[in-house]
């Protein structure tokens, strides 16, 4: 019996890809290291190498096939001593049957579970929730297009760069490599290396250079490969960028955007899984934005680039490849500092931001089945915080849960609780509960990571608690 070769996952969050090209044919002999196929994802084209030696048996997925799920058997390989032809003859069986029975086609294509249950995958899956969300900012009748969050961010930068010569992008791997997470894909080709600049690995230095360039009248977008690395640069973000306007009595501005992925990714451990939103949101002089979907990401990044104030723009790596609807408008810009009611409800409010919004929407769907009508508020901007929308929702539902993919202590959730105590006390029918990650550094082990991260089940439990249904 030959070896089944499956569609590989080329990144922790890849779910499917295009089998762009086969570089081998049935009956070829391959050795370990030979390139067998090219596989395309929305991020990149990757070469797929043979690990074992053998004779190519059957190619089961034709080249050019899109949306091949990770784990799908794409070919077979006869090992040493195996009869390659026999293997070919044995293999087509399910396919032959599949022709007669549609459900079997589905089954044959179904990926074999290959991954451990990780917390990040769980929040990634949950946050995919395809809920109907309300978007009052989109004019009625606007055509919507489906694009990934990554593309939305790129489009926002490209549009603003076309409109304003002063705007440029700098960071590690943003130009020739097309972005470590492919967010800046294509920008170098369009704008050239004067405006799309690869830096050395030198966060403190280039954050300072960007800040200085903003003081000198330019409009820099500084990309951090992840915000974990911005710890090296936090001095310039806080001490140089945020405070300058105030310290200069309003005469020296610093219009800069610091952007990049923030929060937990998948199985990357403690030093690469942290949500910095509460850190930056505590600093007067900064604008802090953490969008959930692609429409908000695009509209708010454009607003951030135009703002005369320094902006920390926190993206979520797990969501980069996710497709959302974005309004097809020439200039889609959203107001900074305004929360968005993602779903209207009357029994309880879940306040969240970034990937937590996806979890909140999933929790809301589960709770709806049990007759609990949930309102979901996406803060979108964390500084300045849209207190009015939070308090208005509290006045309507009288119960609130704050969901945050991040540590609970001194969090955005803590801030929302404080606001409710100080300004919404009379509207409260139950204590506001924080649902966050566990108060520990992020573990690597899949089961522990899962335990450490927020989940929609934890949100559901908290909602039941504040509605006294548990």
């Amino acid at each position, binding site marked *: 019996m030959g070896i089944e070769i499956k569609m590989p996952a080329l990144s922790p969050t890849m779910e499917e890809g295009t089998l762009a090209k086969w570089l081998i044919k049935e009956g070829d002999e391959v050795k370990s290291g030979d390139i067998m196929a090219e596989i395309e994802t929305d991020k990149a084209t990757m070469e797929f190498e043979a690990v074992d030696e053998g004779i190519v048996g059957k190619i089961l997925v034709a080249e050019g096939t899109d949306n091949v799920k990770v784990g799908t058997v794409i070919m077979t390989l006869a090992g040493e001593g195996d009869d390659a032809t026999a293997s070919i003859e044995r293999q087509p069986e399910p396919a032959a049957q599949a022709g007669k029975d549609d459900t079997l086609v589905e089954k044959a294509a179904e990926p074999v579970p290959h991954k451990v249950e990780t917390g990040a995958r769980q929040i990634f899956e949950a946050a995919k929730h395809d809920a109907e969300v309300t978007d009052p900012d989109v004019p009625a009748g606007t055509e919507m297009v489906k694009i990934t969050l990554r593309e939305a961010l790129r489009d926002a930068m490209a549009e603003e760069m076309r409109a304003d010569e002063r705007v440029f992008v700098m960071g590690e791997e943003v130009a020739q490599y097309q972005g470590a997470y492919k967010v800046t894909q294509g920008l170098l080709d369009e704008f050239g290396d004067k405006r799309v600049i690869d830096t050395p690995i030198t966060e403190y230095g*280039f*954050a300072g*250079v*960007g800040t200085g360039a903003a003081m000198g009248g330019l409009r820099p977008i500084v990309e951090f490969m992840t915000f974990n690395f911005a710890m090296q640069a936090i001095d310039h973000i806080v001490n140089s960028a945020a405070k300058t306007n105030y310290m200069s009595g309003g005469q020296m*501005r610093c219009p800069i955007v610091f952007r990049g992925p923030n929060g937990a990714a998948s199985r990357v451990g403690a030093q690469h899984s942290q949500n910095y939103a509460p850190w930056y949101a505590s600093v007067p002089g900064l604008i802090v934005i953490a969008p959930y979907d692609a429409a908000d990401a695009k509209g708010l990044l454009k607003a951030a680039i135009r703002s005369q*104030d320094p902006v920390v723009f926190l993206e979520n790596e797990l969501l980069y490849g996710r497709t959302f609807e974005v309004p097809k408008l020439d200039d889609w810009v959203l107001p900074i500092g305004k929360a968005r009611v993602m779903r209207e409800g009357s029994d309880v409010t879940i306040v969240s931001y970034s990937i937590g919004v996806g979890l909140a929407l999933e929790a809301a769907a589960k709770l709806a089945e049990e007759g609990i009508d949930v309102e979901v508020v996406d803060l979108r901007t964390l500084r300045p915080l849209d207190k009015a929308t939070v308090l208005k929702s509290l006045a309507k539902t009288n119960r609130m849960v704050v969901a945050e993919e991040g540590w609970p202590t001194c969090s955005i959730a803590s801030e929302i609780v404080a606001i409710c105590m100080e300004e919404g006390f009379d509207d409260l029918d139950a204590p506001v509960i924080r649902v966050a990650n566990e108060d520990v550094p992020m573990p690597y082990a899949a089961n522990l990571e899962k335990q450490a991260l927020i989940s929609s089940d934890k949100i559901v439990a908290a909602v039941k608690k504040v509605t006294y249904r548990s």
Partner: protein
Amino acid sequence: MAKAPRTVEPPKPNRERPAEPSAYAATQDELVRFYKDMLLIRRFEEKAGQLYGLGLIGGFCHLYIGQEAVAVGLQSALSDKDSVITGYRDHGHMLLCGIPPQDVMAELTGRQAGISKGKGGSMHMFSVEHKFYGGHGIVGAQVSLGTGLAFSHKYAEDGGVCLAYFGDGASNQGQVYESFNMAELWKLPIIYVIENNQYAMGTSVNRSSAEDQLYRRGESFRIPGIQVDGMDVLACRGAAEEALAWVRAGKGPIILEMKTYRYRGHSMSDPAKYRSRDEVQAVRDKSDPIEHVKKMLQEAGMTDDELKSFDQEIRKTVNEAADFAEQTPEPDETELYTDVLVESY
């Protein structure tokens, strides 16, 4: 077996180097201007020290006394396209950028009329109008920020050069070298000025720096460096001419190490126990930058009366600035909440 010959000096790199600068040949008028500028800084700083002693200036206050020749020599060579940035010992550099003394002094006393409306203080002053970009309180931050200003000069193709000052203490900060690397990679128009006044607070250069010849600190980035007598204004101006020619020719950054000395403590609250009174006195007696120019002017035939009239004129300016700074009102309480952000959201 023959021993390999020992190399005492590292081999000379086979790349272009700036020429050894020569002392600037100043006209009489220029020399008078240098003298007056240095004297203005000296008297201004002495007055600031007095006001600090009277409790009219608070917090940290770092005086430039003794180092005047550096900023005067260098900044006299700049054009109005060029930008200046420095650390917290910034009063002198600001005066030379053309910022009125009373605006600076009123900031030191924390008044509404101060250059930062009283919200910055001694270490945090800026004037975009005069192309003075601070005034930064975090040691070494101005080096990266200055590199960014140089980036903006190059990006905008405005022909400007950034003059970025930092001290011997800051020269051990990591971001300085991150900036050197990018500045040379991108050939940015910047002059890195290391004002080596020999002490980073209380720690002498030799106790803190493995390579204490700071002009060499750019070698591994291929940035040439020149060591300059920072107590001689003509040597400073000469070095500025050479450095500006290098940078304006598109050859990238250059380092000037200015050997200088501060007479006062690191800040007003520093008792300066790490050096002897004799050491300070010896520098004052032998190398004072103002006395040096005064002697030159006397040799050129300037009378004591003329010199005295300069001093009186400057004292008057400084006294007026101090009177203004003492009398002008503190910021309105509503100013607490302004200028946090530029826009309203």
